[in-house]
C-alpha cells in the first residue's frame, strides 16, 4: 500500500515541497511588512550553492557540516535580501525592478552560477546530506510511515516554522506591529513603530528562509549542485504566498500540492505510465497549475483581494510634500 502512486506522491510532495515552503514563509514575512521581493529564485540559488559549498569544503562530522551549511545558506540568502532591502526601503527604488535585478544578479545567469563554477562544485555528489530521521521500521507503517516518518529533519523544522510564524503573527505584539506596518505604515509610524526597522528585519529574514529553501534542494533532495537547480521554484513560492492569502498554514498545504506536482513526472516515468508527450506535459504542469490557481484566486470577489497587505509594494515616506 505504501508503494501506491498516491502515497508516494504525497510523501514526495512533502519532500519536494519543503524548499517551496521555506521560500514561501520567507516571502510571506517580507510581504507582511509591505516589501515585495521578487528575487526569491536568486536567493534560493545562492543559498543552494553556498550550502553545498560548505558541505564539500568543511572538514567536520556530518551533523556539524550540515548545520553549518544551513547557517551559511541562510546568511547568503539574507545578504542577497539585504541588497534589495537597502534599495527599496532606504533608496525607495521600484520594488518590482529591484527584485528582478536581484534575480538576474544572483540567479542562474549570475552569482550562483559564478560561484558554483568558480568553486568547482559541479558534477560531484554531496559529501554529507540530509536523510530520514526515524528508523526504517517506523517508515514502513501504513500511510503515515512514508509521509510523516520518512522525512528529513529539514521537513520537521519547517513544520515548526509554520507553527511559530503563525503564532507570531496572531498572538504577539511584534506580530501585530508587523501587520500594522504592512497594512498602514502611516498608522504604525504614528504609534511609534519603527517601520524601516521592521521592513529591513523581515525582508532579510525572508532572504534567510529562501537560502535555507535552496539548500534543501542541494542537500536533501538531489544532493548535488547543478546550475539553476531550483528551476523556477522561487517563482512558484511567490505565487504560493498569494494562494495562501498570506497565511502560513495555507502555505504548507500549497507547497505540498506543488511538490506533488513536481514529483509526478519522475513517478510516472518510473511506472511507465505515458500521459501524452510525457516530459513536456509533466514538466510544465507545476507552472501551468500555478498560473491557473493564480487566475482563480485573483479574479475572486473584492473580499479575496483584501488578503494582500494594503501597503505591499509601496515605499513609505514619513514626510510627504
Amino acid at each position, binding site marked *: 500500500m505504501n508503494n501506491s502512486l498516491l502515497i508516494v506522491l504525497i510523501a514526495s510532495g512533502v519532500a519536494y515541497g519543503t524548499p517551496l515552503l521555506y521560500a514561501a514563509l520567507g516571502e510571506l514575512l517580507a510581504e507582511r511588512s509591505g516589501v515585495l521581493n*521578487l528575487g526569491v529564485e536568486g536567493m534560493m540559488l545562492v543559498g543552494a550553492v553556498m550550502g553545498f559549498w560548505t558541505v564539500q569544503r568543511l572538514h567536520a562530522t556530518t551533523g556539524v557540516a550540515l548545520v553549518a551549511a544551513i547557517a551559511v545558506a541562510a546568511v547568503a540568502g539574507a545578504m542577497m535580501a539585504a*541588497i534589495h532591502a537597502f*534599495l527599496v526601503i532606504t*533608496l*525607495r*527604488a*521600484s520594488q*518590482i*525592478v*529591484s527584485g*528582478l*535585478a*536581484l*534575480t*538576474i*544578479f*544572483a*540567479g*542562474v*545567469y*549570475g*552569482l*550562483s*552560477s*559564478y*560561484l*558554483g*563554477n*568558480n568553486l568547482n562544485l559541479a558534477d560531484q555528489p554531496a559529501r554529507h546530506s540530509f536523510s530520514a530521521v526515524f528508523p526504517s521500521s517506523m517508515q514502513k507503517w501504513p500511510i503515515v510511515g512514508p509521509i510523516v516518518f520518512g522525512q528529513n529533519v529539514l521537513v520537521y523544522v519547517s513544520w515548526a516554522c509554520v507553527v511559530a510564524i503563525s503564532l507570531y503573527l496572531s498572538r504577539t505584539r511584534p506580530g501585530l506591529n508587523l501587520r500594522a506596518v504592512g497594512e498602514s505604515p502611516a498608522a504604525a509610524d504614528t504609534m511609534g513603530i519603527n517601520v524601516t526597522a521592521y521592513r529591513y528585519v523581515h525582508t532579510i529574514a525572508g532572504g534567510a528562509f529562501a537560502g535555507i529553501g535552496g539548500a534543501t534542494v542541494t542537500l536533501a533532495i538531489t544532493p548535488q549542485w547543478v546550475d539553476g537547480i531550483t*528551476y*523556477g521554484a522561487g*517563482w*512558484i513560492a*511567490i*505565487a504560493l504566498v*498569494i494562494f495562501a492569502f498570506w497565511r502560513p498554514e495555507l502555505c504548507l498545504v500549497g507547497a505540498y500540492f506543488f511538490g506533488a506536482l513536481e514529483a509526478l513526472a519522475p513517478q510516472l516515468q518510473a511506472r511507465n505510465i505515458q500521459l501524452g*508527450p510525457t*516530459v*513536456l506535459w509533466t*514538466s*510544465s504542469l507545476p*507552472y*501551468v497549475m*500555478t*498560473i491557473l490557481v*493564480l*487566475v482563480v484566486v*485573483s*479574479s475572486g470577489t473584492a473580499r479575496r483581494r483584501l488578503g494582500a497587505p494594503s501597503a505591499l509594494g509601496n515605499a513609505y515616506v514619513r514626510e510627504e510634500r
Partner: protein
Amino acid sequence: MRVTVERRLRQPRWLVVAVPIASVVFALAVAALVLLATGHNPLTTYHQLVDAAFLQTGSLGQTLISATPLAFTGLAAAAAFRMKLFNIGAEGQMYMGAITGAAAGLYLGGRGGPSAFVIASMVVAGCVGGVVWALIPGILRAFFKTNEILTSLLLNYVAGYVLTYLIFESESYWRQTKGFNATVFPTGKPLPHSALWPGWTIHAQGGIAVPLGAGFGLLAAVVVWLLYSRTRFGFEAQVLGDSDRAARYAGVRVRRKILSVMALSGAIAGLGGASQVGDFAHALDGDPNGLQKQGFGYSGIVVAALARYNPFAVVLVAFLIGGLQNAGNTLQGATFPAGLVGVIQGIILFSALGGELLIRHRIRIGRRVKGPAPTSPEPAA
C-alpha cells in the same frame, strides 16, 4: 548633521544621462571587488572584456550578434514597462517567435518561393508567435486581473520546455532527422537557402557583418518611438501607465490597451526570436544549453531599465550590453568565469535603481539651525 531627502521640483537633463553612465562605472568597480575576492585580476579581466567585445578583429560583428536579440528584448520590455505592464515573458515570447519563424522558413523556403517573400513571412510568423504567447498573460491581466509578472514569467519555463521538446524529445517538423549527426545529437533542421537572412558588410576591422535583424531592430525602435510620442495610442498608453483612474476618466478602453501593449511587446520579442533563427542559428535551436542559456529576455530588462525605457537609448545600451555578453561567451573558461556577465548586469541594474533616487530627489546634508532662545511666555492678547 542631518541628511534630508527632498523631492526635486525639476529633473535636470544632464542627470538623466549621467546617472546610467555612473551606474555602469560603479558596477564595474563593484564587480572588480568580486573578481578580486575570487582570485582574478580585475584589470586584466576588463582588458580582455573590452578587447573581446569591441577591439579584436571580428569582435564588433560578434557583438552585433549578441546585441541584436538584446535590442529586441530590450524594446519589448521598454514598450511594456513604460505602461507599468511588467512583461517578464520576453524570454518565452522569443522562443515562441523562433518556433513560428522557423516553421515559416522551413515550409515556405522548401516550397521555393522568392527569398524576400520567405523572409517577410518569417518576420510575420515570428511576430505572431510572440503575440500569441504574450496575449496569454495579457488576457489574464485584462480580464481576470491576474498579476502579469508571475504569469508571463512562469510561461518562460513552459516555452523553454516546448522548445527543448521539439528538438530533443520528439520527431517534430523542426527536427533534423536525416544524416549521421542526427542520430548522435538532436539538432534542428537547417533552413533552406532562401530562408536565410542576409546581412550587409561594413568594410572596417576586417569586415563587420551587420545582420538583417539589426536593421529590423532599429526599425522597431523607430516604430515604438513614433507610437508612444506621436499617436493617440501612445497618449492613452502614457496616461494609463501613470494613473488608471485618470485613464478611465479619459475614456481609455483599459482592457483593449492592456492587450495591445502586451501584443506589441510580444511581437517585438517574437521578431527577435525569428531573427535568432534567420540571422544566426539557421535552424531551430532547442538545446537547453543553447538559446535557453543566453537569457536574452532577462538581459533585455536590464537594457530597458538602463535606457530608462527610451527606444533609441535601448538600441544603444543593447549594443554595449551585447558587447559584455559577447565577451562573456568568448572568454568563458578559467579566466573569465561563467555567471560573471549576470553579476555585472545585476550590479549595473542595482546602481541604476539607486541612481533613480538622485534623479528624483535632492539630498541635502546640513546642520540644524537653532531658533531664538526661549523667553518667558507673554500674556495672551
